[in-house]
């Protein structure tokens, strides 16, 4: 028999498993106070999942609020929807808007790599769809334990196959992202999925249930027992803690159903039969009903027994918590219901009216005629607990920052420099990723102008005008560990720069903040410093944060992951035909380095790969310089005066040269600036630098442009048709040898073809 509201009122002292559901004693008390009685078991299920860290952001909320202080305006104009929605909506001109967001699916991807990663892609795609946008591309930012760790051989291929298996089957090009390795991610892999969608201004849809008498329709897949409690259990506690009552089952994805759901939903939008819509993410029906009702002006009545089930034995509590994928909820005017159902039939998508909008501001859910939920939906969706977690700068921070790289032996001779270059190029964090990225379809939809291994992914939006967008994600967790404030800014600066080198103007930021346990003051300090760094950086660059996601508890025992705030930056380009590629294009072009190189090797790839060292102060950031550099790159792209532009990051100039030469098999003859130590010139990771190649006839115009924007430039050499990288007075390396070192690690270590 179901635990009804009436039963709950009559049995106030019945004991309830609130602790097993992840609630704290005071949280349970608060629910009792809100309701004026004990919750029914269905209500307890709803509150526990909606008040979990994953859904309520209870530890991060007070910090995330700071993003709201940023002007809700991009360099391209006012935002059409802000950070409060599923994802912010950015005006890109010509009547188009785009929306993008990046979200984590870390814990499920450790438990079941394929399905965890696949449903991570599926979830973010539905987020974008729910804004009224057609999803047009995905990217993924991945972190794993050491490449040669046995568990990486389990997790990495599964995650990659899952990202590809789901995204490819949806027909969404995967245009970029990153892959990184560090021992702290062993047992805590990160799977952050980004999706971008496009819509016309007039097609924007917001998630709210309004209009008394409007019908609530559940459509898409049937509800099953997968992922029950997944959100609250998997994302909220480490695995060792899970008690027997918890069912940490990972959801199972059905990308074919999601593809139908996308096309069906877009046709429903076009037919104008949707007055409110919500995707199903974590917490399933609990989340969709309470959030839709809370955002509207009335209440909602739902008959839960109408929900189509895959497993008829599911209890109402389980139906409320199930995270079965590929489901959406729409609010539809009564007169439009028939047309709505007809479009769903066309796409073979099951749709069921399960309730309606009411005027009493209550969320009431019945189960076979008996009321099992009667709550104020705002108390479920918006008024969860908010914690000011204690934060403290860890005592080891000074020690780590003090342990710089000055004592580490540096390569001196040309042969040693060449050896270092090869070693870095062949290291897991810098080597060729094509075994991974070749499992993703980058061509589908026919608008991919740039895709990995380019610095940014670029999609054409309008075929006639050439209007397009560019996207990049970045984060160097090693820098964030040394200084979370500066590390976050370095991530922001790098993503911003990666968009600018493609010729697009960076306009907006989305972030996915991956950290250890918020119950540790040191982690909360890292988190709050990260937010501070991002807010200050975004203020300086004039870019709003339009959405994002927080993932805590990425930690095994005492060891948290490197703080990993993955920053995604979106840019706009007026005509994608003017984009700048990353690789050298033709022999005879002059090679220049933009920006200034200092002796900044703390946290560098060299320190990590050669010395297994992480200490010192990360490189400095200069946002004024970054903005001028971006202006230079945008103008140069418009005027067509640079042939290629490639950001310098991990591995410094040496790695940038490796990538720019190997991209189209062009050699380079380089002379390092005499004022710098050759090792510093090649391997420093100073920020704000870009490697460009310029056609001889455009050289004067290029130099003029550098002067106008106040960007220091250094002539390095020339692109050649010799298959070698020659650094004068130091070394000459055949490209074939570099390529061999660069392509080997992933294929060889994983033992794949």
């Amino acid at each position, binding site marked *: 028999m179901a635990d009804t509201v009436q039963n709950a009122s009559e049995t106030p002292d019945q004991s309830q498993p609130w602790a097993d559901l992840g609630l704290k004693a005071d949280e349970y008390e608060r629910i009792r106070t809100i309701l004026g009685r004990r919750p029914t078991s269905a209500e307890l299920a709803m509150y526990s999942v909606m008040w979990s860290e994953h859904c309520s952001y209870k530890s991060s909320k007070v910090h995330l609020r700071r993003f709201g202080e940023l002007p809700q305006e991009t360099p391209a104009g006012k935002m059409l929807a802000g950070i409060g929605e599923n994802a912010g909506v950015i005006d890109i001109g010509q009547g188009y808007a785009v929306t993008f967001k990046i979200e984590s699916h870390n814990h499920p991807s450790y438990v079941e790599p394929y399905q965890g990663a696949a449903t991570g892609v599926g979830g973010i795609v539905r987020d974008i769809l729910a804004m009224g946008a057609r999803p047009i591309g995905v990217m993924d930012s991945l972190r794993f334990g050491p490449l040669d760790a046995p568990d990486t051989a389990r997790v990495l291929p599964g995650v990659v196959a899952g990202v590809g298996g789901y995204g490819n089957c949806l027909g969404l090009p995967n245009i970029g992202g990153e892959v990184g390795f560090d021992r702290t991610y062993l047992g805590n892999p990160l799977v952050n999925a980004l999706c971008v969608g496009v819509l016309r201004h007039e097609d924007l849809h917001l998630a709210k249930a309004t209009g008394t008498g409007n019908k609530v329709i559940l459509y898409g897949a049937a509800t099953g027992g997968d992922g029950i409690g997944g959100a609250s259990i998997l994302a909220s506690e480490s695995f060792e803690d899970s008690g027997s009552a918890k069912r940490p089952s990972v959801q199972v994805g059905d990308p074919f159903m999601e593809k*139908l759901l996308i096309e069906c939903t877009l046709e429903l939008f076009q037919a104008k039969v949707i007055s409110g819509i919500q995707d199903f993410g974590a917490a399933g029906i609990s989340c969709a009903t309470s959030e839709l009702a809370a955002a509207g002006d009335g209440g909602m009545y739902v008959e839960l027994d109408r929900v189509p089930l895959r497993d008829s034995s599911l209890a109402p509590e389980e139906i409320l918590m199930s995270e079965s994928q590929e489901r959406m909820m729409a609010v539809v005017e009564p007169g439009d219901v028939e047309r709505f159902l007809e479009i769903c039939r066309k796409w073979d998508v099951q749709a069921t009216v399960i309730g309606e909008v009411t005027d009493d501001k209550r969320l009431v859910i019945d189960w076979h005629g008996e009321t099992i939920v009667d709550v104020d939906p705002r108390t479920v969706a918006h008024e969860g607990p908010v914690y000011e977690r204690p934060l403290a700068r860890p005592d080891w921070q000074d020690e780590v920052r003090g342990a710089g790289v000055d004592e580490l032996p540096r390569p001196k001779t040309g042969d040693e420099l060449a050896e270092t270059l090869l070693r870095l190029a062949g290291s897991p964090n810098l080597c060729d990723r094509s075994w991974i990225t070749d*499992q993703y379809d*980058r061509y589908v939809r*026919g*608008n991919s102008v740039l895709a990995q291994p380019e610095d940014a992914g670029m999609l054409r939006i309008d075929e006639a005008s050439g209007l397009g967008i560019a996207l990049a994600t970045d984060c160097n967790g090693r820098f964030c560990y040394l200084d979370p404030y500066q590390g976050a800014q370095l991530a922001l600066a790098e993503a911003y720069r990666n968009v600018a080198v493609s010729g697009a103007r960076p306009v907006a930021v989305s972030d996915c903040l991956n950290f250890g346990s918020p119950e540790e003051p040191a982690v909360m300090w890292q988190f709050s410093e990260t937010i501070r760094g991002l807010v200050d950086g975004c203020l300086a660059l004039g870019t709003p944060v339009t959405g994002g996601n927080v993932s805590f508890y990425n930690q095994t025992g005492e060891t948290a992951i490197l703080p990993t705030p993955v920053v995604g930056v979106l840019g706009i380009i007026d005509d994608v035909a003017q984009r700048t590629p990353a690789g050298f294009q033709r022999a005879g072009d002059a090679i220049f380095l933009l920006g200034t190189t200092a002796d900044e090797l703390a946290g560098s790839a060299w320190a990590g790969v050669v010395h297994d060292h992480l200490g010192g102060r990360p490189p400095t950031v200069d946002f004024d310089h970054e903005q001028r550099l971006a202006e230079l790159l945008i103008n140069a792209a418009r005027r067509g005066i640079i042939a290629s532009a490639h950001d310098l990051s991990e591995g410094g100039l040496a790695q940038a040269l490796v990538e720019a030469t190997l991209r189209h098999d062009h050699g380079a003859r380089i002379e390092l600036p005499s004022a710098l130590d050759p090792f510093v010139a090649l391997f420093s990771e100073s920020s704000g630098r870009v490697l460009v190649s310029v056609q001889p006839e455009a050289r004067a115009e290029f130099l003029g442009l550098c002067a106008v924007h106040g960007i220091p430039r250094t002539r390095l050499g020339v692109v050649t048709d010799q298959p070698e990288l020659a650094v004068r007075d130091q070394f000459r390396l055949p490209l074939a040898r570099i390529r061999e070192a660069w392509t080997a690690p992933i294929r060889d270590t994983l033992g794949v073809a």
Partner: protein
Amino acid sequence: MPARIGVITFPGSLDDHDALRAVRLTGAEPVPLWHGSDSLDGVDAIILPGGFSYGDYLRCGAIARFAPIMTEVIRAADSGMPVLGICNGFQILCEAHLLPGALVRNDVRTFVCRDQRLRVETTDTTWTAAFQPRQEITIVLKNGEGGYVADEATLDQLEAEGRVVFRYLDGNPNGSYRDIAGICNERGNVVGLMPHPEHNVDELTGPSTDGRLFFASVLNFLAARV
């Protein structure tokens, strides 16, 4: 009046928009066709596009082959109408027995997306007549189940009758027998291949524009026929 080329959308088709765009960019009129219809809407040629029809959950193309429109496609193919199956479309043509053999999971066990070198082995089809004999081209390849298999007798027959239309160069990406990337029927009006010519019509978004010659071929054929 330009030739009208139909592109069928099955549930789970993904490259239907790309195929329609390629038709438009190469000078024909694109006509979207729906799997559930029993009309070909008077088109002059048909493309079965890439994707994962019905999620490829049973066997690639095995369910789509029973779509109502396939009855008309088979009838049209038998009467000589040009039909091109790309990737999932190739799989559907095999399942529909318009072409012999079958496509199985790649021998590398992963999805493979790359710019693939191919050799055009015959220009004696409605979709390849505009190529030079033995021309080498680059066409996007992207699939998880692209390994072409058939029994030895069928393979020998395809070779003997000049019905191997494309062969992989610079490495066989998926374990296809005899490096076969595409084949045709006896008449040469039905061609199926795993690579995606519709992704190679625009310099900005594809690794080459070699795909344009597929469309030029069929347009020449249709123009000559009228």
